[in-house]
């Protein structure tokens, strides 16, 4: 290997008592795509922030392009640029301004004209050819905003591009676009790309080499071609993954439906849907963003005023507003964990009972014993460390935060549980625990679960039944054993084979 473009030695970083990195080394070769893998809390994001100069490590040194870099100060974006996990798009600025944000060649006065051609080219190259430079960023769908973020890194001509979960918010069709852009960058410009992803199929599809972190330490670096899925997972979690084979429970004859939708529609978002779901079934609604599948899920929780009839156990239920839906026995978990899903700055115990305050209080007074008891049960059910109950949710890793979000909704004891992206940004170990718990709820308590996901692996792993959507209409409704990845991708990317009004109804 020739001299690495980036080389870090002995990086250490602690946050309070938590050691996020305990002496990390990494070398990046020029023009490679390098995957960073590890469970939540393994130190990937900290590493990326240190490499970008956003966080100052306690110890260590860093060389980029053969030069020693001063740690803790932002690195020249022409050398290294980070595409963050959290979107850093300014909603009220134009697409052009968002791409130019933070560029160093702007000078004291920002004259847009001279950059238009360059930015146009970059946008075309990331598949945003149809987006106007002057469009406001907030008007774009989430996926396109993510692509703009990537375009920002490219526009600066960075020699090293760090992508922290660039695909977490994207659907599969869009992910393919982003990958094509990365391969193109590598081939044409020799850009070195580092990608963090929880989706292992992405790692295998895209990367040349993989580095695995565990508990803030370097575990291994290997050529992707020489790795197997099992080997990679083992390196990440430190032992073999025990996935109890999830046996899809088949539809049973003669069981009255738990949820029954008749002519359920939201004009402009999704066409009328008829759907019956039995107790204990886990159904995934699959479609790209904007396909209507996500909106349908939200509408069942009363987040959109929809038309039609919704019956729970045969009784018509109204879902005007989220509180009404909760009272009717419908619970909902948001896809936006940090902003809407949990109270990050409140204790785990408080979060877990936050939706059942009426049940752990008497005449307006909180009953401490009841709070503690309910929280303890929920923590046990969702594999949350009971010793951490008094701590804030923000001290937990993403996967454990998601368990809190689920526990808090499950506390309601709903008849229908709606999950929007149930394991976004959650590592494999926690995923398995979450799926196991959902399965247990479905089987033991007959809970019906509907979830929306853009993660194909998740859809295939966790559902009994898969309903696909394309451009606001239902394409197919089939049991899990009758579906495979190709069929789902075909449905959500191309819709039904022939224009068929019956299937879309």
């Amino acid at each position, binding site marked *: 290997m020739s001299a690495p473009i980036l080389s870090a030695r002995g990086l250490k970083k602690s946050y309070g008592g938590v050691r996020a990195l305990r002496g990390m080394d990494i070398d990046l070769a020029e023009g490679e795509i390098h995957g960073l893998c590890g469970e939540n809390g393994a130190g990937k994001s900290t590493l990326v922030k240190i490499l970008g100069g956003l966080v100052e490590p306690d110890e260590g040194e860093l060389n980029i392009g053969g030069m020693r870099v001063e740690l803790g100060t932002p690195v020249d974006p022409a050398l290294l640029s980070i595409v963050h996990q959290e979107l850093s798009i300014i909603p009220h600025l134009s697409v052009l301004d968002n791409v130019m944000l933070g560029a160093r060649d702007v000078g004291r006065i920002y004259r847009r004209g001279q950059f238009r051609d360059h930015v146009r080219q970059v946008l075309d190259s990331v598949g945003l050819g149809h987006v106007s430079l002057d469009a406001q960023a907030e008007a774009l769908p989430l996926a396109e905003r993510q692509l703009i973020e990537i375009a920002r890194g490219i526009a600066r001509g960075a020699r090293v591009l760090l992508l922290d979960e660039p695909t977490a918010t994207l659907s599969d069709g869009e992910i393919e676009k982003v990958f094509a852009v990365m391969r193109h960058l590598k081939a044409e410009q020799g850009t070195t790309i580092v990608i963090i992803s929880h989706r292992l199929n992405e790692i295998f599809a895209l990367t040349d080499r993989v580095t695995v972190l565990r508990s803030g330490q370097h575990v291994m670096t290997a050529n992707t071609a020489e790795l197997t899925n099992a080997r990679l997972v083992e390196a990440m979690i430190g032992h073999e993954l025990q996935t109890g084979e999830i046996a899809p429970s088949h539809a049973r004859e003669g069981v009255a439906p738990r949820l029954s939708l008749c002519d359920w529609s939201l004009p402009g978002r999704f066409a009328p849907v008829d759907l019956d779901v039995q107790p204990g079934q886990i159904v995934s609604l699959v479609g790209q963003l904007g396909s209507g599948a996500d909106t349908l899920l939200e509408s069942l929780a009363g987040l959109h005023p929809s038309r039609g009839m919704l019956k729970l156990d045969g009784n018509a239920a109204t879902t005007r507003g989220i509180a009404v839906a909760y009272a009717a026995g419908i619970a*909902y978990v*948001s896809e936006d964990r940090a902003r*809407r899903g949990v*109270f990050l700055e409140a204790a785990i115990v*408080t979060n877990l009972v936050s939706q059942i305050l009426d049940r752990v209080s008497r005449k*307006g*007074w*909180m009953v401490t014993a009841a709070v503690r008891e309910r929280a303890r049960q929920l923590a046990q059910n969702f594999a949350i460390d009971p010793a951490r109950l008094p701590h804030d949710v923000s001290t937990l890793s993403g996967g454990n935060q998601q368990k809190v979000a689920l526990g808090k909704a499950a506390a309601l004891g709903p008849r229908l549980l709606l999950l929007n992206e149930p394991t976004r940004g959650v590592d494999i170990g926690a995923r398995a625990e979450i799926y196991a718990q959902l399965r247990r709820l479905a089987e033991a308590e007959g809970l019906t679960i509907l979830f929306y996901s853009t993660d194909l692996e998740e859809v295939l792993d966790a559902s009994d039944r898969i309903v696909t959507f394309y451009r606001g209409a239902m394409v197919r409704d089939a049991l899990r054993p009758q579906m495979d990845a190709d069929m789902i991708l075909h449905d959500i990317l191309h819709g039904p084979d022939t224009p068929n009004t019956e299937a879309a109804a």
Partner: protein
Amino acid sequence: MSAATLSRTSVFGALFAPARVQATVIQIATVVMFLVACAFIENFASASNISSILYSASTVGIAALGLASVTISGNLFALSLGSTAAFASIVYIAASGWGVLPALAASLALGLVFGLLQGLVVGWLRCNAIISTIAAGSLIAGLATWVSDGRTVLAESGPSWLGSGTLMPGVPWQAVLFLLIVIVGEVLMQRTRAGWELRLRGTNPDAAELAGLRVTRMVVLSYVLAGAGAAIPGALIAAQSGTGNLRVGADLDFSAIAAMLVGGVAIGGGRGRIIDVASGTLFLAVLTNILLVNNFAYEVQLMVKGLAVLLAVMAGALLARKKR
């Protein structure tokens, strides 16, 4: 490690956790400053000086407690406290012929109504909290001027127990009232469902809404409490001075904000306790009094108060950064 040391370290850890460290430091600083002043400043510990500290702490403190419910529930500040207090002082004097308690009740009712109206505008109509309360402040001041013809109203009866009475030398009834409100407020905020909902609303308004909490009701409630919290000091000052006029609540807004922030309530909502507001109030009252008895001019007192708030805000910002 034995169980005893374990529990001691965890109590210590809880007191100095990032979320609590400012409140704890202010509590300790207040006690230390008070003891040092008692030892070294002549006449500081006299009954008349202690009672003058408590008079100023009680009025500012009660307003700060009401305001804290707005801040903790995530709506920054209400900036109509001063004019509400002024109007309440006028109402108190006008009603003082009926006796102390009816007059107090009349001013309280005025504060509740103005608080309710602002709460509906902010909570129900979802208008900007700051602008709405500034506008309300102007409106209330205008109404008060109109009602009083811009004149100072004078009490016909003599001094009352609420104005100048003491439980014992150095402890005025006003301070007892303040203490009662602190205890009741602290218990309600920590132990009731509404208190939990109010605090959760403050930590994350979007998540609170999605969790199905009674968000609108909590916001309205917080403004009702703020209105009441502003009216009571208006009545107390009127009872003490025997006058009601528009100057009564002159620096009440900033003093209340200062007391609350210095005590360790987070501007962004969700963090902070009612007792923190009380300790912030006492800290500033003792500090101001020390300056006063050492003959520092009013402008120095103003600067020190401003500096204290700046330091509190900077401490909050630093703690928030450290957590990241």
